[in-house]
């Protein structure tokens, strides 16, 4: 732990934050703080399973994308064997960047500095002047690209920098039940529609992660225009209905909004709804068929939202799914990635419709997205002030609510959907990492 000391003052502070969450309090400054950011890089992002890519972004041999874990740029490539490998995007000779593009296709990477050549799986295969220069002092097996441990779930590729991290399955801890709603639409699963929207914002990643872990409370106000112009299936008065589900001790959470009288699987094409009825478990069907909005976060920084949307007020419209990655690049500064997931099996027509709905509502120019980002940027700015260092926020909503015994899904599930329980679980997990307990 010597290299990972956060300083005595900060250690005490972090312990205090952890204690506060149990009592429903969380300090404002964590949302825009240099020390918190630095500690997060070492203690959260260097240890957790972090989302890298969706398999459908790299469908063919040689396809790659470049992504980050903390401040490490990684190449995520499908090797000639079909397996997916993640390697640090850094030449082992002097550290040049191997891939300078966001995506591409290559069986090998040749360094543009002195010409070392690696397979896309990371093995070093070519060293110029091997005999004349190195005279046997270099064993290629020792100098491959630095590998990052990966694992996948239903098309999601995750990586972790911690060799001792538990398995991905254990890490997800049952949250898969809910993720299937986004990832198993139809019997062949989901795919990305195209490359992600990508933008940089003056927002702390935690505000976004919290919002997507089930903030049904903000919707009637932040997205009031949607209710005002009639673009919402729910109304201001019914919007709070539904469930907040979280996986205790894991940090993952989802809000499941429910609108009374909404037909089962509304907004899905009929064939797709049929497929889901047979390919998902009866418990999943029971939960998903009555879900209007599902907004969830996989700890720490991967989020999803599924919602029906129609440009004709009052109609169920079409379901779309957005997948988010909040990549922290500084205190109060985040690189946003946003994908649209579509059911692989659906007709091209439905995929197009779903993508258009996503674009209009939740892409970076989306009518809903715009207002979220405006709010989050203001929260971030406020959180950076000197007075904010001594201010706490209440996380006490639904503190006394008891779990719904009849709910068929796993985790700690409370109703209504408007509730802070998912956030308490999220920040309690975060503080376990921040205090070095994980």
């Amino acid at each position: 732990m010597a290299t990972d000391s956060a300083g005595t003052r900060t250690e005490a502070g972090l312990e205090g934050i952890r204690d506060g969450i149990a009592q429903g309090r969380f300090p404002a400054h964590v949302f825009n703080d240099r020390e918190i950011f630095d500690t997060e890089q070492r203690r959260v992002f260097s240890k957790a399973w972090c989302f890298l890519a969706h398999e459908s972004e790299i469908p063919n041999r040689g396809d790659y994308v470049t992504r980050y874990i903390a401040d490490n740029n990684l190449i995520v490539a499908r090797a000639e064997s079909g397996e997916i490998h993640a390697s640090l995007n850094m030449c082992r000779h002097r550290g040049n960047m191997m891939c300078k593009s966001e995506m591409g296709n290559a069986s090998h990477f040749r360094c543009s500095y002195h010409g070392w050549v690696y397979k896309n799986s990371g093995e070093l295969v070519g060293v110029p002047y091997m005999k004349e220069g190195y005279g046997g002092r270099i064993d290629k097996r020792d100098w491959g690209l630095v590998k990052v441990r990966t694992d996948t779930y239903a098309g999601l590729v995750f990586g972790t920098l911690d060799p001792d991290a538990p398995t991905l399955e254990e890490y997800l801890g049952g949250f898969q039940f809910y993720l299937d709603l986004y990832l198993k639409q139809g019997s062949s699963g989901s795919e990305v529609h195209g490359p992600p929207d990508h933008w940089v914002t003056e927002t702390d990643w935690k505000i976004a992660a919290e919002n997507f872990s089930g903030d049904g409370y903000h919707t009637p106000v932040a997205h009031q225009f949607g209710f005002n112009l009639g673009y919402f299936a729910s109304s201001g008065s019914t919007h709070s209905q539904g469930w907040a589900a979280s996986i205790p001790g894991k940090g993952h959470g989802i809000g499941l909004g429910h609108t009374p009288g909404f037909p089962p699987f509304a907004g899905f094409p009929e064939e797709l709804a049929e497929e889901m009825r047979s390919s998902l478990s009866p418990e999943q069907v029971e939960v998903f068929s009555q879900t209007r909005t599902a907004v969830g976060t996989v700890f720490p920084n991967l989020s999803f939202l599924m919602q029906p949307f129609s440009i004709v007020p009052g109609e169920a419209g079409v379901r779309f799914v957005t997948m988010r990655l909040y990549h922290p690049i500084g205190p109060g500064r985040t690189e946003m990635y946003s994908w649209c997931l579509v059911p692989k099996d659906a007709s091209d027509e439905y995929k197009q419709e779903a993508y258009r709905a996503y674009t209009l509502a939740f892409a970076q120019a989306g009518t809903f997205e715009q207002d979220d980002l405006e709010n989050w940027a203001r929260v971030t700015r406020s959180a950076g002030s000197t007075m904010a260092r001594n201010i706490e926020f209440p996380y006490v909503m639904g503190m006394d609510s008891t779990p719904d015994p009849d709910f068929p899904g796993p985790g700690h599930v409370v109703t209504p959907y408007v509730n802070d329980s998912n956030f308490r679980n999220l920040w309690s997990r975060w503080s376990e990492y921040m205090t070095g307990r994980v």
Partner: protein
Amino acid sequence: MAATKPDRDTVLDATEFLYREARALDERRFRDWLDYLSDDVRYEVPLRVTREGQAEWEVSPTSRIFDDDKQTLTLRVERLETDFAWAEQPPSRTRHYVANVVVDPGERDDELRVSSNCLIYRSRGDSIEPNLYSAARTDTIRRVDGRLLLARRYAVLDQSVINGHNLSILL
């Protein structure tokens, strides 16, 4: 098609059309702006991705930041007219600089293909750091009953990672 090169008057008309249309946006006269659009307008801003020089595409053939028609553009304007379009409350100050206008014959006799560079300066609140958006626009401008209307806009941004917490403005 042996289309002839547009004459000077046509070039001037098309250029002035772009200036007036941009001014409607900058002055936030969004209803006036909708009137500059044909009923079948298509408004697209594709996603740009950083790729190798030899890559098949650099501007995504499938992903769009905007993919609008008259109905959805009207929805965006209706939204701005409510009191709850928080992203533009208070509104951004924008300035569209339209330059390098090149006017060519369009696919139809009543259409022109107009390309231009557009630099948009956007300032919000008391921030001293503006967002700058640089785009290459390819427009189709159509003559209808003696007026010019925008029938298609295809604007490609020059950044692959957009700097700005949202795109609540129009290009």
